[in-house]
């Protein structure tokens, strides 16, 4: 009779089975498209309409959030996204392949967004003088019908709270937490786009997460208590 071979689990495996210590699910953004670079190239260099429509959908949430971390209104952020795509279409022949095409695209986005953000800051002094309130954090949540039904989506109020918490962070921290935690990018991708070291990226991410956690303290306590 064969005796089953018993193997002691490693501490890591044991942690994985502890109550209240479950690993988060994989980020949805990375699962959807197996070869984003190929798709982007088809869209920009070949001007393939189908590929272009797909990359517009694929990158819009991340692009809009990054733009929003630099500019003050949703409308301006959408303009930034639009100008980024137009610039990428016009300038694709100048892409030399020294970085990933996605990195190149998001660097263009940041350059445009930063320029627009500086212009926003200059304009704001005028609206402040006139007593016109700048719009608060606009909800980045709407149109439930267009979402992936498989993806669990936060309720609107909680989503708004998280958006508001992210909006209070310094721009760099916003960019890192959006790309790493909301969009599921790797640390390397984020470092390439932002031009920061891995150590710097980790510090920014840690600070951003801590501040968001503090802002959600009551929700997390409640969820932890009931779970």
């Amino acid at each position, binding site marked *: 009779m064969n005796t089953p071979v018993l193997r002691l689990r490693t501490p890591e495996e044991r942690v994985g089975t502890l109550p209240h210590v479950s690993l988060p699910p994989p980020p949805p953004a990375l699962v959807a498209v197996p070869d984003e670079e190929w798709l982007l190239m088809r869209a920009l260099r070949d001007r393939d309409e189908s590929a272009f429509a797909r990359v517009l959908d694929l990158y819009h949430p991340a692009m809009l959030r990054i733009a929003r971390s630099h500019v003050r209104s949703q409308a301006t952020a959408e303009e930034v996204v639009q100008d980024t795509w137009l610039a990428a279409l016009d300038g694709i022949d*100048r892409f030399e392949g020294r970085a990933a095409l996605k990195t190149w695209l998001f660097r263009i986005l940041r350059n*445009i967004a930063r320029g627009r953000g500086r212009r926003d800051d200059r304009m704001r002094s005028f609206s402040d003088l006139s007593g016109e309130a700048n719009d608060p954090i606009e909800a980045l949540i709407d149109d439930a019908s267009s979402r992936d039904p498989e993806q669990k989506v936060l309720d609107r109020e909680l989503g708004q709270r998280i958006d508001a918490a992210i909006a209070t962070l310094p721009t760099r921290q916003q960019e890192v937490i959006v790309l790493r935690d909301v969009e599921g990018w790797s640390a390397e991708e984020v470092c390439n786009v932002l031009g920061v070291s891995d150590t710097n990226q980790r510090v920014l991410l840690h600070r951003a997460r801590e501040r968001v956690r503090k802002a959600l303290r009551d929700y997390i306590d409640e969820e932890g208590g009931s779970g």
Partner: protein
Amino acid sequence: MNCETARGQLQDFDDDGLAPGARAALAEHLLGCPPCRRELNEQRRVRRLLRQMPREPMPVFLKRRLLAALDLPPDPFRSHTAPFPS
């Protein structure tokens, strides 16, 4: 490993930023330290919430405008003034 060291490594624990030895040591600490486990659990909750943030679709008017731009010839002015990354 004490709690202060463990807390400093929790983020790297989930981001695969620890060497195998350090990872095993932290896992061992977590098994015997409920407060640090609670801390790890909270950090993971925040990350899970962030990953569940809604993804805003591109407005239809903007998508139409950009798709129409595919048929336009490149704009030499724009391509020479756009702030391309170095």
